[in-house]
């Protein structure tokens, strides 16, 4: 592909490379952040600390809130 991109192939490949790196870093950061937060939330809930709405749902498992 380098040959077909002309004399400025390096600039074109660098532009696409930087874009891919930034997008992958962004996706990775959001996924890791989400995983970490869900872990922390699960840890708190395992210790019996729940939101009021979650406590009500647990008290009325039939869904009649």
């Amino acid at each position: 592909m380098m040959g077909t991109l002309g004399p400025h192939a390096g600039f074109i490949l660098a532009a696409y490379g930087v874009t891919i790196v930034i997008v992958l870093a962004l996706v990775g950061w959001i996924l890791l952040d989400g995983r970490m937060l869900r872990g922390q939330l699960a840890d708190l809930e395992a210790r019996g600390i729940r939101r009021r709405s979650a406590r009500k749902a647990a008290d009325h498992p039939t869904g009649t809130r």
Partner: protein
Amino acid sequence: MALLDLANPTRFMTLTGRILPWLWAVTAIVLGTGLYLALFVAPADYQQGETVKIMFIHVPAAWLSMFGYGMMATSALGTLVWRHPLADVAARAVAPIGASFTLMALVTGSLWGKPMWGTWWEWDARMTSVLILFLMYLGLIALWNAIEDPIKAGRVGAVLILVGSVNLPIIKFSVDWWNTLHQPASVFRMGGSTIAPSMLYPLLICAVGATLLFIALSLMAMRNEILRRRIRALRLVAAASPAGASA
């Protein structure tokens, strides 16, 4: 479901949990098609040669850098005027994504500028105003992280976002108001686009795909921000009642 129902974070989490897999699939198809057309079908430009291929990522990134800030300005209004519970969440979630797309626009523009203009950077009105946009994104992120109370941080941030939104028309019209090295608008302009359809359609498809990517990432980041606030609220509950925390 009424639009106002989305004001409820729990409903927002449920709805976005259903939508996101489909949104990612559509994003992959549209962006993949756009990049295929841009890289393998669109012809070389008669002046720029193959370097025009950089435009298929630079232009959507530049548009989305402003789109992101526009979303944040709308969210800031939602925070200050309507006290919408998700408005501040949206602003905080979009900021790092907008900053990333602005960085993308600056770097790809620089990589295009060197072979085409003979310089990596010029302090002209368009480039300088986009750099200011990038610095504003970073400043807002720093401000939110510096204030512990999320409600107070949200209001202070919302005021700063609205003040900074004056930069958006400056970016858009800088090429018309001042004599800049950066070329004037060539897609959305009075009298129609000056770009040949063989390049315009791949560019527009890339822009739609990149916009879908931006929205998908924003929704994911909003879900994370909601979880972060739930965790903070639960920790406050735990701190207020040590007996409950150890139960």
